[in-house]
């Protein structure tokens, strides 16, 4: 099962939410420009629906969700926090001014483990409300070591809270087609749109890609002086490639961070990178359904081979390596 409906649900709730920048971030159109959607005040105050599901009480759910919030809070380059206010009868996905997380029975969403909705002030991208539901169509667990044949609440909460904070999906993973969908073979981002298998708790830990994404949105002044970025283009026969997945690999730290080309010029920006030499890899976005990343109006070029850039790119502290041109060839 997948959680790829998460952003789609969000997009349906707030029509103007669009992909922006790397990882992806979520954004909203404000006039002619695009603003990152983000919380302007912390802590984010949240409620939990006072209803459990088989094997997970509301209290156990809240404890697991709190650990996931704490994991995001502990990212050293940002200053985000959340505060549990209390249990409520109201289910999530009701626009009531309160951020509510809880279980919800959604048999119509039979491939969606969980989803996040937003209410955004479309004048400045400020988040006003965000709810997360966990679909009781699936079996859940909050066991420390993960529950056999059950999805891990904390892992999925970490992903959905990433959305709640303004991140969209990462494409940093490999999948295979199976009957009825895709199965993830391996991934290196909590924000990958397809969840690991039941019982797996690997996604309780944020990866470099997640850290870069959240740092790009909420990076502290100190972090912004320490981190850098890479920008450039992916081109094929001198023309821009839209929707290419670009991965930056720090050969010193081993950190992998992904981004996308988001216009017809093939332009990309990957920010939140730790300084050092990087190699770059561009690949077609073929490891997930395109609507997990972009809306249907966005054209994605899949006709090129996975390619490494022929230059080592050094990311400076507090600055950017610019004008990188990754040349790819048709398949």
């Amino acid at each position, binding site marked *: 099962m997948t959680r790829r409906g998460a952003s789609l649900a969000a997009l349906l709730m707030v029509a103007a939410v669009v992909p922006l920048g790397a990882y992806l971030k979520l954004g909203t159109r404000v006039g002619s420009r695009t603003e990152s959607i983000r919380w302007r005040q912390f802590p984010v105050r949240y409620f939990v629906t006072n209803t459990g599901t088989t094997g997970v009480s509301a209290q156990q759910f809240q404890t697991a969700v709190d650990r996931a919030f704490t994991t995001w809070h502990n990212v050293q380059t940002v200053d985000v926090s959340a505060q549990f206010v209390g249990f409520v009868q109201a289910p999530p996905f009701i626009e009531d001014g309160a951020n509510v997380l809880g279980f919800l029975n959604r048999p119509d969403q039979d491939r969606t483990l969980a989803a996040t909705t937003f209410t955004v002030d479309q004048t400045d991208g400020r988040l006003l409300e965000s709810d997360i539901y966990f679909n009781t169509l699936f079996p859940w667990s909050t066991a420390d070591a993960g529950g056999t044949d059950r999805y891990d609440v904390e892992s999925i909460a970490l992903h959905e809270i990433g959305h709640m904070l303004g991140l969209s999906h990462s494409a940093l993973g490999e999948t295979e087609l199976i009957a009825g969908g895709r199965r993830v073979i391996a991934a290196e981002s909590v924000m990958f749109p397809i969840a690991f298998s039941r019982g797996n708790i690997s996604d309780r830990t944020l990866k470099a890609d997640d850290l870069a994404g959240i740092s790009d949105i909420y990076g502290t002044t100190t972090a912004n002086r320490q981190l850098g970025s890479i920008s450039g283009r992916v081109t094929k026969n001198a023309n821009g490639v839209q929707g290419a997945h670009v991965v930056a690999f720090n050969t010193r730290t081993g950190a992998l961070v992904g981004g996308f080309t988001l216009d017809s010029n093939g332009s990309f920006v990957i920010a939140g990178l730790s300084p050092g030499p990087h190699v770059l890899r561009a690949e077609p976005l073929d490891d997930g359904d395109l609507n997990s990343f972009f809306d249907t109006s966005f054209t994605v070029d899949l006709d090129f081979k*996975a390619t490494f850039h022929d230059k080592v790119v050094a990311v400076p502290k507090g600055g950017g*390596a610019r004008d990188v041109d990754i040349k790819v060839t048709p398949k």
Partner: protein
Amino acid sequence: MGALMMSAADAVAQSSPRIEISGGGIFAGGVDLGNRTAQLTSNTPAGTPSTFFVTGSDMKSAPGVQGRLGFFVTRSLAIEGGVRIARPKLEVSITNDVESAANIRADETVSQYLFDGSAVWHFKGGRDAAGTVPFLFGGAGYLRELHEEGALVEEGAEYHAGGGVKWWHGPGRAIGIRVEASISIRDGGVDAEGRHVVPVAAGYVAWRF
């Protein structure tokens, strides 16, 4: 006037030289900076790493230039300061891509500056010797490396030890040729996490007075 100048030259040759200036070329060996595997977390209960692709980094061997200024504090012992400039290539080979992307060698040119100080021990009469003078030296330095666009500066320490020979010729034996070989240990720089040994050969034209 001419006679006076000859006398001065004789005086240089006959008195002990105190200062030595030299400049020339160096050749520094390459450094294997090691391999690094780009890994994904596999969809298994243990979450074992899964190879995305593999990189291997090398700082390639490169020529450079160096200038040195020495001062004899005793007949045999001199202290020296020097500046070395080289532009080696940082090369990263990329292989074993999970989607069979073509293997490639990505590279960039690194501007490398070394500011060092050394103690030099001369044999066979030291500063007063004519002809062939063997010497040993050792010291430390500050390494500053700039990546290709110059925006990222890497700093490190350098330690070195070696030996060589000087041949003094010309009027008053004031002009010489100096050749040396050394081991340079780099701590930091482009490879911020490692310490590496680099063989260095150098040849200079030297002037003492």
